[in-house]
Structures are given as C-alpha cells and as structure tokens.
C-alpha cells in the first residue's frame, strides 16, 4: 500500500532560520508527491507538487521541496522562516489501486506542526 510518513509531530524554528519539514514515502511506481499547508481553523492550501522533472520543486510563499528517489524523501524547505509560516503541514502521495493503476486519491501524512518563534 502507498503511504507517506511525517516523522516529526512538531518542528520548532526561530524566525529567520532555515526550516525543514520531513516527509518520506513508500509507493510502487513513480511517486506523485504534494505538500499542503493548513492554517488554524482553515482549509488546506496547496504549496507545491512533484510529478516529474527537476528534483527541486519551487512552490508558494518561498517554499521548496527536494525529491530524493534514493532516500524516498520529499522534504519541505524554506531558507528563512517567518512567524506567519506557523501552521500544520501535510505531505501527500497519489494512491495506486489494487491492480497497479493510478487512482484519483491522495493519501495524506499525519501532519507536522511548524512553530516559528519570533
């Protein structure tokens, strides 16, 4: 079964420092990977996705993610954190059906709470 793991429930970082939110995946076939962010009491917002091509994907609000096939990882990064980046971050992967075909479903990780201290 396809899955994503976000090993850290919470990441704390000081404003201005670089941040990394970790995600590892387990899929059969080529992974389609996504990052979404959820601000308090709001719905999820799309940040970026990796389908194919360059391993470094740039997204919204200055975020980027690096696809690493050998380490089966898709970590989210930002060079300089802002207090306003504090939110819940979800990694997601496309699900593969029982017969090996792609489905239209995303499987979400458990989320990582990012807390940026001023």
């Amino acid at each position, binding site marked *: 079964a396809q899955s994503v793991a976000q090993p850290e429930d919470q990441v704390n970082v000081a404003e201005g420092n670089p941040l990394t939110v970790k995600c590892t995946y387990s899929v059969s076939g080529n992974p*389609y990977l*996504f990052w*979404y962010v*959820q601000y308090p*009491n*709001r*719905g*999820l*917002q*799309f940040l970026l*996705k990796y*389908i194919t091509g360059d391993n470094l994907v740039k997204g919204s609000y200055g975020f980027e993610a690096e696809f690493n096939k050998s380490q089966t990882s898709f970590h989210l990064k930002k060079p300089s954190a802002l207090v306003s980046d504090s939110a*819940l971050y*979800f990694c997601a992967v*496309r*699900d593969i059906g029982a017969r090996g075909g*792609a*489905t*239209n*479903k*995303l499987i*979400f990780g*458990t*989320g990582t709470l990012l807390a940026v201290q001023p």
Partner: protein
Amino acid sequence: DTAVSQTPKYLVTQMGNDKSIKCEQNLGHDTMYWYKQDSKKFLKIMFSYNNKELIINETVPNRFSPKSPDKAHLNLHINSLELGDSAVYFCASSPGLPAVLYEQYFGPGTRLTVT
C-alpha cells in the same frame, strides 16, 4: 469571492439526528471531494465526484450519502449521527481528471460535534 464555500461552519447536534452539509465551488472545476479530519488532524478522503459522477467511494458507513446536483455543488447527508462522526469535514475541488495531477482547493471546513 470565496472559491469553495461550505455551510454551516459549525454544526452541533445530538446522536441519532440527520444532518446535511452543503458545498459550493465557483471555480468551474469538474471534480469535488469530501474529506474527514479527525481530532488528531488525520485527513482522509470520503467521496469524490467528477461531473456529477461518483468516482471515489471510500469505506465509510452507508449513513453518509453524498449528492451532487450539478458539478458546482456537492452535499453530504449524514443519517443517524453517532459520537464518532464528530470531526471537521472539508469539501475540496480540482479542475479535472486525473485529479491527482491538479491542486485541490479546500473549503473552510464544517466542524461537526455530536453530543
């Protein structure tokens, strides 16, 4: 203008009642979804429609029934509510299929509390 809207935002009801949550998107998208987020923030898809056709129907109790009167609306009706149904329900939409190639736009959520 709100892209994906849900009503109501909060819903408090007693066990055994029947309730509905409505969702509307004004983005012209073909695909809509219902997700459930539990108290631990775990997010799981429940249903998806593409042009009013059901394309994803996860293992959810048949007390949950989605209805899509047109491609801009996807409603969720829940019969005989149980305590375990308490959660935040999110509606989302995306431009088309395959849905996983497109970003999904989420509504603000409906917090359902069953007492």
